[in-house]
Each structure stands twice: as C-alpha cells, then as structure tokens.
C-alpha cells in the first residue's frame, strides 16, 4: 500500500520534472541556507575558540589598576618581580607564572628597522603563552639573572628585519641596547581581536628593567592554571594574595585586575553561537516559504488531476488511499528537495569556508534536522491538498474536464 503510493508518487514526479524542480526550489534553497548558515557559524565559533586557546589555555592575566571602561585604567603602582615569585610560591595548581613588562621600540638590523613591542619576561612566558620554538633556544638561567643582552623574536619581526637570512646569532639594536638573537618563535597568527601575535621581541625581564625601562616595574603577570583546575578558584587565591601584599584593607576595591581568558573565550563563542542561531532562524523562514510553494503546486495538481482522482475513487479507491497517495507525493517531493539542498549546502559551505577562511565544521545534527524538517513540510503542506483530493465526489470528478 505504502510502497504503491511511493511508486505512484515517483512516477508522477518523473512525468513533470521541470514543475517538480520549481516546486521544490524553495525547499532546496531553504535547507541549503539553514545548513550553510549553521555550518559557517559553527566554523566561526570554532575559530574563535581556537584563537583564544592559542593565547594560552586557562590563562589569567593580572595587571595593576582597574579598567575604567573606554580603555582607561586607574593609576596604581606596578607589580614587582617578587609579587610574581610569591604567586608561584604560595598558590597551588598553577603551571607557569610569567611576569612581564613591555614597551614599543624601534628595532634595527643593518639598514632595516621595524617598530615593535619589546617584552621583558622569563622562560615562563613561553609556557603560559603556548609558544613553541621554530629554532634557537630559550634563555638560560645565567642570562636571566645577569640581565644579558639576548633576545627571542617572533615570526613577523624576523620577516621584516632578516628576510631570507638566518636570524640566530645576529645582533639587533633596541634603542641603545645591542642584543643577540638566540631564538625564533613559531607563528601563531592573528589573535581574535585582529592583533598580530607574532610581532614581538622578548628579552630577559632584568635586562628590560635595567637597560630600557630604568625601573623595577612588572606591568603584567600571566598565570597559567593547570588543566582540569577551576580558574575561578585560582583567580580568587591570586586576588587575596595580592590584596594582602599591596596592603588593601577590606573595604577598599582592588587596585589591580585579573582577566580570565577562558571567560572571554566563552563570552565570544557564546556571541557567535547566538549569531549563528539568528541566521539559522532567518534561513528557516525561507524553508517555510518553500513549504507554501509545495502546497500551492499540490493544490494546482489536485485540480489538474481531478478526473484521475475520480477514476480512482470510482473503481474503488478509499478516501484514505487517495489521501495517502497525494500526501506521499508531497513528502517525496519535499524530501528530494531536502536531499538536493543538503548536497548543495555541503558544497557551498566548503566553498564559502575556504573563501572567508573559516574552518569547515561538518554538523551532522543540522543535516538530519533540516532533512526531517523538509519532510515535515511535505506532511504539513501536503495534507490540505491531499484531503481536498480525497474528499472529491467521484461523479463530479469524472465529469471534470
């Protein structure tokens, strides 16, 4: 019975290929739009998450002063190296503590010069920031302690200053300080905020303080929390320790701030997820419109085939058998539309993902949901014309020309 209805439906669709195609065009576009939106949105979410985790997983960034909004900070005394040492000594569950200070400096090598950011820090910076070495080495203990003139450069700096040359062992000049390049970092690309993360030069913290800044300030402490440990707990412990060290009484506000990168990551990926859902919802409206298109054509088809329906009823087809035939036809049509839409969407997503440089993330559930939705559209919008066909009076239907 059902099989027969299916065969009849396929035969009817084959008979009117062009009309069938136009009928389901709405469904095809709707399904494709939904899947493309959700797939690209999913890719963007994944990209944001990846970029943030490239900054360092489970990273807390502690800086003096409170953010006042609009990029301003309240003034507060800087940290000292011993603050960072106290954190790594007294707080458990952390894997790296990297104190740093930085400023903008023009770097010179031969005839080339490049304005970049110089950070004074320790080897812990590379661990906290998930940096890997392309060549060369980290600082050794004696270089850090004595404040030697050595530096480790990022990929962008290498490209701008050295071009094709091997930078390791070369001397570059940072203002009055001439220092030897001992390491080259692997590229990390752009950060989520669009900053070039590879545009940096790292020198030992002590070198930075003595030779460039001329003070003992530490402007930023990056704390890497061990995997599987709540960053919130560590954040709380760090806040308490620093309040104590900076002699802040209980009724005063913090004069430093702790930023949890994971929180920012969650917020950003949450935002893209909401955007994805919104775009998906807009696309879903076009699916609905596609469904109305199917209803329209099915109604026309019922009128066109009134005599056929009359013949079927006269030779003994039951109401529900005619209903089923038309319903199955609508469902088959819209499901075919769904399948074509899915194929189009997958091809389109791959192409678009390449074009706007977002990873292609295949999402099986949205494919299944879109397909079921398109079949459901067939049921819902096919039912009305099908019922109209089934309830025809056989005599009237037979007389119809």
């Amino acid at each position, binding site marked *: 019975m059902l099989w027969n209805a299916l065969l009849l439906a396929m035969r009817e669709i084959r008979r009117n290929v062009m009309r069938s195609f136009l009928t389901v065009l709405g469904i095809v576009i709707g399904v494709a739009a939904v899947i493309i939106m959700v797939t690209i949105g999913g890719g963007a979410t994944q990209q944001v998450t990846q970029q943030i985790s490239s900054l360092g997983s489970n990273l807390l960034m502690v800086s003096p002063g409170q953010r006042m909004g609009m990029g301003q900070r309240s003034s507060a005394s800087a940290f000292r190296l011993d603050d960072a040492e106290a954190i790594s000594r007294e707080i458990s569950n952390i894997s790296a503590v990297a104190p740093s200070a930085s400023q903008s400096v023009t770097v010179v090598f031969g005839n080339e010069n490049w304005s970049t950011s110089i950070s004074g820090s320790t080897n812990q910076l590379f661990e906290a920031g998930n940096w890997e070495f392309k060549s060369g080495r980290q600082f050794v203990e004696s270089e850090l302690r004595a404040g030697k003139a050595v530096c480790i450069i990022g990929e962008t700096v290498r490209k701008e200053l050295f071009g094709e040359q091997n930078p390791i062992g070369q001397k570059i000049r940072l203002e009055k300080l001439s220092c030897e390049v001992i390491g080259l970092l692997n590229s990390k690309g752009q950060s989520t905020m669009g900053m070039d993360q590879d545009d940096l030069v790292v020198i030992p913290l002590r070198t930075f303080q003595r030779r460039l800044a001329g003070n003992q300030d530490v402007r930023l402490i990056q704390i890497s929390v061990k995997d599987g440990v709540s960053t919130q707990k560590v954040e709380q412990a760090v806040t308490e320790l620093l309040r104590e060290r900076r002699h802040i009484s209980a009724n005063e506000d913090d004069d430093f701030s702790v930023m949890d990168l994971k929180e920012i990551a969650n917020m950003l990926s949450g935002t893209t997820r909401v955007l994805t859902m919104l775009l998906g919802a807009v696309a879903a409206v076009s699916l609905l419109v596609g469904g109305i298109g199917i209803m329209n054509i099915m109604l026309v088809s019922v009128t066109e085939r009134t005599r056929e329906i009359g*013949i079927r009823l006269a*030779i003994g087809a*039951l*109401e*529900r058998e005619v209903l089923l035939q038309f319903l199955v036809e609508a469902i088959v049509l819209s499901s075919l539309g769904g399948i074509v839409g899915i194929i189009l969407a997958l091809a389109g997503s791959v192409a678009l993902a390449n074009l706007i440089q977002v990873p292609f993330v295949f999402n099986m559930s949205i494919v299944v949901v879109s397909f079921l939705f398109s079949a459901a559209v067939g049921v819902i919008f096919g039912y009305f014309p099908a019922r109209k066909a089934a309830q025809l009076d056989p005599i009237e239907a037979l007389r119809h020309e």
Partner: protein
Amino acid sequence: MQSQQPSLIELRDVTKVYGSGQAEMQALGGIDLTIERGEFVAVMGPSGSGKSTCMNVLGCLDTPTAGSYRFDGIDVGSLTRDQLALLRRNYLGFVFQGFNLLNRTSALENVELPLIYRGMPAAERREHALNALKVVGLNGWEDHTPGELSGGQQQRVAIARAIVTQPSVLLADEPTGNLDSSRSREIMELLSSFNRDQGITIVMVTHEPDMAAFAKRQIHFLDGLVAHDANNQGHS
C-alpha cells in the same frame, strides 16, 4: 426472505433530487427495477431522461434521495462512503463514457489499477492484467499509453480494466459512443461473450438500437421514469 437468494439489483421507488428550493431538479421520479444475475440489460432513452443518474445509483457512485436500493440484499442507502467504495471495488466493473483511462500511463498499468486497490501482489496483478488484455485482444499493446492507442483500443483497455477484477456486474455507459459501427460491433460481441461465458451481469447505456439489440432486455427511460421494459428473447 433469507431462504431464497435475493435479486442482484433491486430498486424500489427510487427518487433522486438534485439541488434544493427553486433550483430543485428531479432526476429520478420513483423507479422500480429488478435485475437478476446473468442479465444483459440495455438502458435507452433521450438525454436528461434519468438514465445516467440511474447508472450512478446502480454503480454505487450516488445514493438515492428516497426509496431503497438493495444490491445482493444489501441496503446500499445505509452504507458509508468507504463501504460504497469497497462495494465498487469488489463487485462492480465500470466502462465509462469516454474511456476515462489514466493519461501517460501504460495500458497494463491502467488495467492493474483496480487490482492495486484490491491489494493484489505485483506478480499476480501483472498476470491477471495481461490476461485481461489478451481477452480483449490487445496482446502486445500493454506498454502503450492511451495516447498511442486508437479509440477502439482505448475502449478495450477500459473494458479490460472493468473485467480484470471479475465483477458481479459490469456497468457500461455508452461503450460504443465514439466508435464506428464495425468497431462497435466488436465491442458488443466482446460484452456479449462476457455475459454468455462468464455469467457477468451487464447493464449498458446506449443510444443506438443496433447495439441495444445485443442485450436480452431493453429498458427505456423517459422523464425520470421507466417508460418501457421489454425482453428481446425472453428471460434465460
């Protein structure tokens, strides 16, 4: 009443009224008609005389406004739409005016159609349908669509579709209406043979006395009533 077999078709004071109020139109004005198994009846009369309405009532496509119709003892007036459909499916065969075949559908599929609704398995269905086509002399034409067949051939396909279910009654509305006389004669001989050899009761509407002469009984309609009812060769 249960002891003896009821008549196959028994109309008692059947009226049929279309429309209501001012537009009321009486198509049948109280018909009494009994048709026994194995009869071959020709129904004649001018257009508008009620013969088509009567055929629709006999074919269980329409129910009487008043009066009773018993088909094989069953009161048709009390049946639901689906029960009427089942009655048509299982006991009646139709040859419609103007063939009424499905377009763009092969002869074989057209003949298979009533068997599909009977739920017959595909292989058996095909065999029955091919057999019916053979009986009407359309061997080898089963893959042709109505558009590729002549009028006479289309009418044979329609007849094959009507008899493939081996119905108790074959209702034919002007089966020779669009055909020339030699083709008409072939069709009539075919119908006669079904009546003679398979005992199928046939009720046929026709305008042509030549064709009516093939039937054993002729009924003339006039103004919604039976005006004349005569046997050609007496009851068999």
